[in-house]
């Protein structure tokens, strides 16, 4: 049954955006936990920890996100773990975000000059106090613009979850398009909705870049 595209369709697509956001936030949370571990291991003085971090980042960055999704959705169900789409997507996107955020944060940690550690030590700060008061505040400033930039990528990439049947913005668009047979208008609306999420973040990232105060 083919029907006209109407306000109700736009409304449903806007509603589906909330699942895009939910998946993004879950992936961001999971990815932050993994990313923090990867960054600390990657900036560690222990060789085997650095090796482990490099291995993880290399593996994940070398696998298409779509393949990760398939592994955690279809792959695991074959061996008996049948995960609901939201759970499978959350795991896959966390693994993915963990590698990229970990790499961004590791870079930020090692970008704070060694002399900043020394300056902290020279006024009597302990290792943990140097981290807390001197290194991390600067690393966070360095990492924020690229992290926000990655967040934009993450939002757009959640559209891939449509292929495992997770109904977020893109999947809702597919359904609407099938019902109305108006793909041009439907996907234009989908694109506009993604844009309304991502563009402000991109602007924010640019603005943060201009207001950094870190040692170079």
């Amino acid at each position, binding site marked *: 049954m083919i029907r006209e595209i109407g306000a109700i369709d736009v409304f449903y697509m806007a509603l589906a955006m909330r699942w895009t956001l939910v998946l993004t936030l879950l992936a961001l949370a999971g990815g932050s936990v993994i990313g923090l571990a990867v960054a600390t291991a990657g900036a560690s003085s222990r060789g085997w920890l650095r090796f482990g971090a490099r291995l993880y980042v290399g593996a994940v960055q070398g696998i298409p996100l779509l393949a990760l999704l398939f592994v955690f959705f279809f792959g695991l169900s074959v061996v008996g773990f049948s995960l609901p789409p939201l759970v499978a997507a959350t795991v896959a996107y966390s693994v993915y975000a963990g590698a990229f955020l970990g790499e961004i944060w590791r870079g930020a940690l090692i970008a704070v000059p060694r*002399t900043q550690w020394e*300056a*902290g*030590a020279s006024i009597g700060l302990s290792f943990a106090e140097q981290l807390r008061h001197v290194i991390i505040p600067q690393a966070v400033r360095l990492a924020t613009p690229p992290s926000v930039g990655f967040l934009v990528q993450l939002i757009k990439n959640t559209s891939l979850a449509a292929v495992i049947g997770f109904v977020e913005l893109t999947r809702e668009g597919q359904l609407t398009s099938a019902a109305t047979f108006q793909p041009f208008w439907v996907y234009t609306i989908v694109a506009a909705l993604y844009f309304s999420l991502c563009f402000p973040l991109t602007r924010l990232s640019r603005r943060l870049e201009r207001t950094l105060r870190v040692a170079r």
Partner: protein
Amino acid sequence: MSLVELRQVVKRYGTHTVLDQVDLSVEPGEIVAIIGRSGSGKSTMLRCINGLERVQAGEVVVDGVAVHQPGADLRSLRARVGFVFQSYNLFPHLTAEKNITLGPRIVQGVDPARATELARQALRRVGLEEKLQSYADELSGGQQQRVAIARCLAMSPKIMLFDEITSALDPELVGEVLKVLEDMARDGMTMLVVTHEMNFARRVADRVVFMHQGKVWEQGPAEQIFAEPRTDALRQFLSSVLH
């Protein structure tokens, strides 16, 4: 008792010996200038005194603390030993005030209001009281270095170590920093100054130490070191820097 006592100190990086059985003692109130070519071990010696570098052999005793021993209480020692770096090393994410109050608050447990007052006093001593709320990137090199000095002063150190603190400055900014050092000298601060400013060494230092090939090669009162060098190495060094 000496405030700083180095006995037979050896520091190596791999097979390269940077400090070769160095002996040095500094009395309270003394101002010692350390001169020598780059690579002669001046900066390394200074960094061994507050434990930024570990020594391989010998003893480093500073204000009663055996710095060379593992587990030495470097935290409380460093609160009493100010260290000023060539590259200032201010914390760029903090204002001048927060740079200065960090040590007193965290290391010495001073309450925030009192710490701010200490910061104000320290900045007044270096002539920058109006820069309390400035960030490093809003200050000139000379001003940054004076804030770095104030950061040490706020902790009421017993001794100050200066590691080529004017070498990164534009020539016209050197004077304002050296003036701060002269004021501190007048106030009786014990100071070890690694420097290439021979005029400053001659004018302000009680004693000049010439380092060469990782050793204390020659030392004595400033006028003697500059007027009557006893070794060829010092004579050559002086003729290359004073012309």
